[in-house]
């Protein structure tokens, strides 16, 4: 895919909805398309956070391995979601596994390239980080609701 058409496709992703066209084009310089088959890992816990993923289609399980219980799924992500805010946060290591549940297509944003652009252009860095924060905030809200265990039976 040439850079122009990559930028055009990237602009359609919800993560980019509040970025300017110039910012999306700037971001597209770090992006490439990637495809994962069902069962294939996008990232493994503990390994180097070398990319941020914007999910275009498919389904990805966020999991953690618990000895004796195997892989425990904590969330399922799909089109419009992002995976990988660890790319901006030292020590740049993944905290959980991400595994494709079905054939999954993503934009893969190179971590070194991203960190370079965020440093080089603070205006872009601010807009990008704001999008990342919005996604993290939404994920945190969902995790808190999950933690509340709202469907547990209460005696009446």
């Amino acid at each position, binding site marked *: 895919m040439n850079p122009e058409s990559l930028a055009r496709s990237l602009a359609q992703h*919800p993560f980019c909805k509040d970025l300017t066209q110039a910012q999306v084009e700037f971001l597209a310089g770090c992006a490439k398309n990637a495809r994962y088959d069902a069962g294939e890992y996008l990232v493994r816990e503990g390994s180097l956070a070398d990319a941020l993923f914007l999910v275009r289609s498919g*389904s990805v*399980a966020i999991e953690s391995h618990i000895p004796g*219980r*195997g892989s*425990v*799924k*904590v*969330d*399922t992500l*799909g*089109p*419009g979601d992002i995976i990988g805010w660890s790319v901006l946060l030292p020590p740049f290591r993944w905290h959980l596994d991400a595994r494709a*549940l079905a054939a999954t297509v993503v934009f893969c944003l190179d971590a070194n390239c991203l960190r370079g652009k965020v440093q080089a252009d603070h205006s872009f860095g601010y807009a990008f980080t704001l999008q990342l924060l919005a996604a993290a905030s939404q994920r945190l*809200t*969902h995790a808190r*609701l*999950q933690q*509340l*265990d*709202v*469907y*547990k*039976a*209460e*005696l*009446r």
Partner: protein
Amino acid sequence: MTDALLLESMAIVRVRRETSDTFTFDLDARPRGGFRFAPGQFNMLYAFGLGEVPISISGDPLKPAVLTHTIRAVGPTTRALEALKKGDPVGVRGPFGTPWPVDQALGKDVIVVAGGIGLAPLRPAIYSMLSRRQVFGKLCIAYGARTPADILYDKEIEKWRGRIDVDLEVTVDRGDPDWRGHTGVVTGLLRRFELDAERTVAMLCGPEVMMRFAARELESLGVPAACIYLSMERNMKCGVGSCGHCQLGPSFVCKDGPVYPLTKVEPLMSVREL
């Protein structure tokens, strides 16, 4: 409804186990000429000698010969109802309360958001919309349960999922090794549906905290607050707004609810004393 305080005895014709603590029974309404209700309404069910509980009607409004309720056994009265068998009598008063705004949704997209046993009061609305599917826009259903074993109406859900005119997603808060579906909260599903947000009617039922989170998410997607409806639950006793047990601010849930527009209950939901 003839006399709201008059109890009718109706016989159980069928009992189905839904989950480890939830069951559905059908009551025979033929001797009284059928039982008519609007989706979202509830009845007071009496376990003879023990007490009454408010239970939403979970059956098909177009099949008045049977009156269906899905009940979670969590207290003495619901456990007594759980122990009943085919042929046993149950006391019934009702139907009570306000219905889901099914007719207001004509020509619009509809999103149904159910959590846990909250799917039961919404099922009559789903039946009603499916019976005249062509007069609505998109029909999206988001259902969240605690675990895969807590999913209600699993066979029916598969049937709905198989329809090309229904967009249905199911999630569980906690999966198990055999669960191949979605894990995460029901609010996390809402962004996945492609709705005409400004022309969407939302119907929410589940634990109050889930509805609060879901309502906020829908508002952030552009669904007008006046088009978001919730089914509230309080301690309903008389069913006619006389006893005051279910008072919610200036209204009585049994009479003015249980289905309210968000605009009416949102200010009250944040008042902890209520």
